[in-house]
């Protein structure tokens, strides 16, 4: 465990892609700690993807979408206990992590997530490596957003 990036713990849910050779990632990405760390967990990447097309999210909606993606089920089939587990992990871990790096802003009163000053930087990095690193995840995040917007 030599640095912060490898110290990041996460459940092995089978969806974590192999991290590509660091040399394959643009130098610009590696130099930006907050970008690197924001992308260091599947749930945080998913959260960032969702900000690509919609700038505001309720924490509950986001938890439902992430649980659906992880369980490979439609949103309406997400079990309440799974949604609760994701909600808790977002509220107590991933959201404050991204808030600290100013990748997202969180309104405690309305439980709403929105973009912050570093969002664009992270999204640009995701756009650049998304196709090879995690295209399926991005596709799912975007399709969930499309579903939401057509309701």
């Amino acid at each position, binding site marked *: 465990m030599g640095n912060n990036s490898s110290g990041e713990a996460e459940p092995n849910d089978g969806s974590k892609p192999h991290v590509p050779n660091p040399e394959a990632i643009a130098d610009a990405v590696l130099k930006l700690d907050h970008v690197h760390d924001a992308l260091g967990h599947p749930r945080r990447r998913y959260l960032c993807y969702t900000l690509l097309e919609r700038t505001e999210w309720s924490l509950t909606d986001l938890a439902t979408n992430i649980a659906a993606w992880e369980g490979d089920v439609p949103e309406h089939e997400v079990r309440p206990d799974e949604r609760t587990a994701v909600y*808790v*992990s977002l509220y107590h871990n991933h959201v404050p992590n991204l808030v600290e790096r100013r990748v997202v802003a969180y309104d405690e009163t309305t439980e709403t997530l929105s973009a912050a000053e570093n969002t664009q930087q992270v999204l640009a990095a995701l756009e650049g490596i998304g196709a090879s690193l995690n295209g399926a995840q991005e596709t799912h995040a975007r399709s969930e957003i499309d579903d939401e917007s057509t309701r």
Partner: protein
Amino acid sequence: MTSRQDRNSKEGEYLGDRTNDLTQAAQRRYDGERELTTEIVYAVAAARGVEPTDVHSPPLYECVDAATVETALFGRSTSEDRPVADGTVEFTYAEFLVTVRKDGWIQVSETGARQKTS
């Protein structure tokens, strides 16, 4: 710790043992299925008798780097991230002392006075 819980049980019953004015309020076992952060919050919720989603302010993230504790104590299933720490990790969260043991048991004890967290 003298009590041995059923290995299949994720949530231990109230034990009621007192040590140094600490009352154990809840315990729960981390098994790698969910993030350590999540399991700790579930244990705190059990100690308070509330739903996990009602455990707010502050986020656990502000009190402890649970992700690093998780890697240090339990490692991951990938070969490059083996457990490096032994023993237990203790920290305070709100009115509780939280102990995470190497064997996966998370114990939440009331400290008697609400502690300031920052």
